[in-house]
């Protein structure tokens, strides 16, 4: 009896394990099939007919369920935009850019794509006014939180800053903003982490404390902060934090018009030249090559 029981238990366990394995592999197979069927729309791409890229890219973008699928859709649209431009159809190229802007999760890149669309087809100005900052504004809550995170870090409220920084939307937005401003996002992230590494510091963001015994107010001189609260650890870090914070809270660039020109050099010591958006620039961003315009075996290839 005991032996029978043991054999039964073992068999049941074995069967359960086998079933779970079978189910997971079946699911994986289903996913792969779904993936393949999603990309099948890219089989009819033709560089001589850029509209094929618009149709395929928009359709793929609409049904995309993963970031990878969205990215592939963007790649198809960028290729289509290049071919349309080369064939003299700037309006079609502009349409492709707008389609990518709709898919693109990065608000700054979405703005750049809209700007490029206007460069290609200035007649779409009204649409540009309406939609250029839409994604940017949709992120306003995240932007406020990201700005609050930076301010908290700067003012020594490490607990609040850490809480906010650990939210992925805030974290990603800070990195996106740093990249858009041409800052080294990795270095900046490292700096922020160092600033937030002291959750138990004495001041915890306070400037003055009242001494309980005699009511005297004292300045909290905290050894963790080499400079007064709000001034960051050094001038470079202060400048970068201000740059990001300003970018996150600013809704209208015209506030720069009354600023001294030295602000340009303060925010960017190298006075980086201005570059208009360009299709060729986006090729490297989306990692496509116009000599490989066909989608085959889950990658872009040069021959159908």
């Amino acid at each position: 009896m005991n032996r029978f029981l043991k054999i039964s238990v073992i068999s049941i366990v074995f069967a359960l394990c086998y079933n779970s394995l079978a189910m997971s592999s079946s699911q994986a197979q289903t996913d792969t099939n779904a993936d393949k069927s999603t990309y099948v729309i890219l089989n009819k791409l033709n560089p001589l007919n850029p509209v094929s890229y618009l149709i395929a890219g928009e359709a793929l973008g609409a049904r995309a369920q993963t970031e990878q699928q969205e990215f592939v859709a963007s790649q198809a649209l960028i290729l289509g935009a290049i071919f349309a431009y080369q064939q003299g159809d700037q309006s079609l190229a502009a349409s492709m850019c707008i389609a990518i802007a709709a898919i693109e999760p990065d608000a700054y890149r979405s703005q750049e794509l809209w700007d490029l669309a206007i460069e290609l087809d200035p007649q779409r100005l009204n649409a540009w006014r309406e939609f250029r900052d839409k994604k940017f504004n949709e992120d306003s809550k995240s932007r406020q939180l990201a700005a609050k995170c930076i301010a908290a870090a700067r003012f020594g409220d490490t607990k609040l800053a850490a809480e906010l920084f650990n939210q992925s939307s805030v974290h990603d937005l800070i990195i996106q903003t740093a990249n858009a401003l041409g800052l080294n996002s990795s270095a900046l992230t490292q700096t922020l982490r160092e600033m937030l590494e002291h959750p138990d510091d004495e001041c915890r963001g306070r400037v003055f404390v009242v001494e309980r015994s005699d009511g005297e107010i004292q300045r909290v001189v905290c050894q963790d902060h080499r400079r007064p609260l709000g001034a960051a650890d050094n001038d470079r870090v202060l400048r970068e934090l201000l740059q990001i914070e300003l970018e996150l809270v600013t809704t209208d660039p015209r506030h720069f018009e009354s600023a001294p020109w030295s602000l340009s050099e303060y925010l960017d010591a190298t006075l980086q030249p201005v570059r208009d958006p360009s299709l060729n620039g986006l090729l490297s961003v989306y990692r496509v090559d116009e000599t490989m315009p066909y989608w085959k075996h889950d990658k872009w290839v040069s021959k159908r």
Partner: protein
Amino acid sequence: MSDQHHRNSPIVEFLGADAGAGGPFALLGLGHEIVSDDQVIKACRRRLNQIERHPQRSTPNADEVRLALHTATSQLLNHDLREQLAKRWPPGVPVSLPKAWVPKQRSRQLKPTLISKARKLVGASGGWNSTARKRLAHFARINRVTALELVSALNVGSPSNSTENDQSPVRLQKSHIVPSFELIENAPSKISSWLPAYTILFLMSAALISTVLYVPQIQAPQDEIVKNRSAISDVPNTVSNFFSDPTVSRDEFGHYTALAHELDQIAAKAQTQPVESVERFKVIFPLFVERWILFPEPALSRSSLNISGFTRYVAQSDFDEDELVAIFAKTPMDTSSPQQIMIRAAILDVLLSEYRLPAQLRTKLSDARSACVPGLAHPSADVHTALGLIAGLQGVESTTDNSEWWDDWLEGVNAFTTEDKLIRTKLVLSVLSSRIRKADPLDSEWKETADLLASSLSWKSGSSESFWLVSQLTDESVNTPRLSALTESIATNSQAPMITIQMVLNPTATMPQRQQLANQFKDAWDQGKSESETPTQLSTLITELHYTVSLTSPNVVSNDIVDSYIKLARLNTAMWQYEQGRTSEVAELLATFEQRIPARDDPAVYSMDMHNRDTQWAESAINAETPAELRSMFAQLRTDNGGGVNSAHALVYLATVHANADMRIAARSQILRYRDRPSILIAVDYAATNNRVSSRLAQLVSDMLGIQLPNRTDDSWYPSAHQALLTRLSNALSLTMESDLNRIEYETRTIYLSRLIEQSYVGDPLPSAIDSARNLFRQSMREFVFANSNELQTRIIELEAMTLVRVERSKSPIQIFLAYQRSICAMKALHIEQRLPGRSLQVQDLLAQLETRLDQSNTVLNQIIQVEHCIAKLWLLSHQGGNS
């Protein structure tokens, strides 16, 4: 073509159809029977007089006809040659008789009354003299009788031969009519009055002929190509075969007119005798290729059209196309001679412009053209245009420094640019631009070539080459050693005395040294120009703009950035003011445009560090018990220029939280006093971020910023206040930079404001540079508000859209300014295209160059300079050739 050719022949045009019958006899209007050399000379003189009476007597065609007359004269003066020529060429129609003296076929009736009147005329003139002859000729004309008849009638009717009452008409016999020149020349009574005049004329013509005949020749002994362009020097030796057997040897064509005439004949006969014409062309064309540089420009044009006409007629017959093409492609020629390649390719370009050629022939000619000079053909009906393009391509694509090659090339260029030296200058400068950018080492070959090319230009003040040299000195892509050799050649060979041997570039010079030398050249040329002439305001402005543009390289070195920008911007403003007629402002700017702007202010100093003085003050202030005690501490704040961040935190704490109102007021006063200090801004921002927004805090922030904020209970109060405080903080911290940008901005305010037509800001604080740039852009747009071209309106809409996008993308004030500045430049370009449609391509070229320079720029400040540079070049373009 041949009839038209004859109709258009200069000989026919000037001397009449009979002179164009062919040969020296017809040309001079002489029969084959010539009794004396005088006859020939006089005939030549008469023809020359005919040309002098023609309205186009001063044209090159008239000179050519005169030359032909002298040639024919010298031929007929040679008795042996005259006999041979008489066998070949028809006699001419004598033109010595004035029309009034030409005998008529039918006799006329002369009434005795007419004769009597004529006799009285002779008597009234004092006898048979020149006056009497003139009067008789006029009398005969008005009475519609011939003068000869009248004179004969007077002789017949003399007292010895007739009675006065004889009323019968007199009939003249033709045999009684004598040649007019005998009648005139042999008038016995007053021949002495004509003799001195004729003697003088004869001596002059003899002197002219002998001068032309015996001009010394300068020629290499082995050189088969005749370099001397004199009219008749070789005629006695070569012209004996000129009109004879077609198989004449190549050495016989010593003068271009002979070849030109041959081509005339070939074109004339191509339609009726294609085979013979082709055979003749095979002989003549290689000679033409060898000696085309001797042709004056009109003759070269005509010859190229003759070749084109010949080709078209032959192609229309059934002639073998390959044989025809072979003449152009395969006839032996010196393949190392660029001038021969030049003309061959140019002739092919002229042929390819002929739309009536069969398609197959066109293809073969096109292939021949590509084989001659690599690259696409540029069909052109004008051989000079074709030569210009080909010479330019040859010059730029050449890889040799061989001076003999360049000498040959330059000779070809000189040949077709005698009328237009500007093209010659452009060609030579494009060659020099190419050669001094080569990485080839500096050697004696390049030095010789540099000497040759440099000496072909004047390098005078205000010339294109002077501006070009200045721009090359500041261009980093130019090879310094090769440029050094060129400057040495210029210093040695130029016609500009102000350029001295001290202005030779060192082969190892650095860019700053090259820049310095460029300024030296500019100063030397400026001095030369002021000494030579009194320039107008516009010419001075244009010259200064030229030099300043030339001195601006694609990436201006940082030391010169401020000066380069200010100079360019001021000169551009002067051009704007000149267009608006504000000449006094222009004069002021011209006098001051090179002045440096004031040095930058010392940067502000704000300490952000933690130090005891600041901490102690903060603790003392925050623990002060009375307002008086607090106020006594403010002196230290003044000493410390507002205090540190801790002090600021203390002030904000006191101003917002302290129970004593007087304490709050005292603290508040200090906060407002030092409102622009970073320490105060940080402290206020901290209070707004971390504390509940009390009414005191909200009022303090509002008073500090001087702006209206939302209600403090509104959720939007904090974001608005925080943004404004951050902006102020960034602005304040930016003043701690050692930056030239603020003084550039201040100067730009004045510069751009001065460009506006309506300047309503006199006496007020100046608007910012961005405001002025925006207003200038709008002003430019208003000039097109009534434009009714759809294309123009579309372009303006596009520009407006791009401006909006660029402003929206801007991340700093200087980027906003750049956005408007680029749009101002684009509007300027549009304006020029509308005003001067012929400059449209050049405008587009300049805009394309601007885009390239903007891409190459390494800072936004350099981009601003490049936009001003483009605006300056647009001004220069709009004033090119004196157009305003």
